[in-house]
């Protein structure tokens, strides 16, 4: 898949060090980042994290995407990581406050396209915080819970359900 990609009215590309400030501003927003792992408000540490990530990206172990609007203004990020022989995980989803409600759906569709192209035959596994009630309700529509611990439910989605989810989301946007 050739990046950047213009799709669903957004531009998707891989994160670069120069995006550190934008990402930090999202991840240190106490309300919108409350379901993500905590991030220290330290720009240099964010740059260092991205630098290390780019090495994982080179090895095709991880992909951190930034999506921008048609004016090329960054609006959010999402990450594909823990890519194994038969599974992968996505997460670190966050969208700039005040943006169109359906941007995150469009980025989810992009991930489905990316997975179909680059992660063929791999199953998506992911976790959702137990207190993230709306996300749980949504994921229960299409995905299956495979386990839980004190903090998270663990989900997986098979090919047929991923197709059903793709069709549902496509019908909305």
């Amino acid at each position: 898949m050739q990046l950047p990609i213009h799709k669903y009215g957004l531009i998707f590309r891989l994160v670069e060090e120069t995006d550190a400030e934008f990402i930090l501003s999202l991840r240190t927003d106490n309300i919108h980042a409350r379901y993500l792992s905590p991030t220290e408000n330290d720009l240099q540490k964010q740059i260092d994290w991205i630098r290390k990530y780019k090495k994982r990206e080179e090895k095709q172990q991880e992909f951190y995407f930034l999506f921008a609007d048609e004016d090329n203004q960054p609006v959010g990020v999402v990450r594909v990581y823990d890519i194994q022989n038969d599974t992968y995980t996505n997460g670190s989803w966050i969208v700039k406050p005040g943006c169109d409600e359906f941007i995150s759906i469009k980025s989810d569709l992009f991930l489905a396209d990316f997975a179909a192209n680059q992660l063929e035959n791999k199953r998506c596994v992911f976790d959702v915080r137990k207190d993230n009630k709306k996300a749980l309700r949504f994921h229960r529509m299409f995905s299956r819970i495979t386990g839980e611990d004190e903090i998270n439910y663990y989900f997986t989605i098979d090919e047929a359900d991923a197709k059903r989810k793709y069709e549902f989301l496509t019908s909305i946007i």
Partner: protein
Amino acid sequence: MNIEKFIQEFTEQFDDLDTSTFTAETLFKENDEWSSMTALSIIAMVDDSYKVRLTGDDVRNSKTIQDIYDIVLAKSKL
């Protein structure tokens, strides 16, 4: 369909907000909890309870619960 039941189902999609004052005229996006996940929850609820598929434009173009109710009502008659 009746609006009272619809408002109740609608408010159930908000987890953190006191929705006891929600009425048909409530501007449902004018609060801190409104997000893409709330929008998706509402679309999923309507899909499940009323067998009607709301679109992003339906939600974008609506301000009040009554607006959404009217769209669901119109689409359910198609």
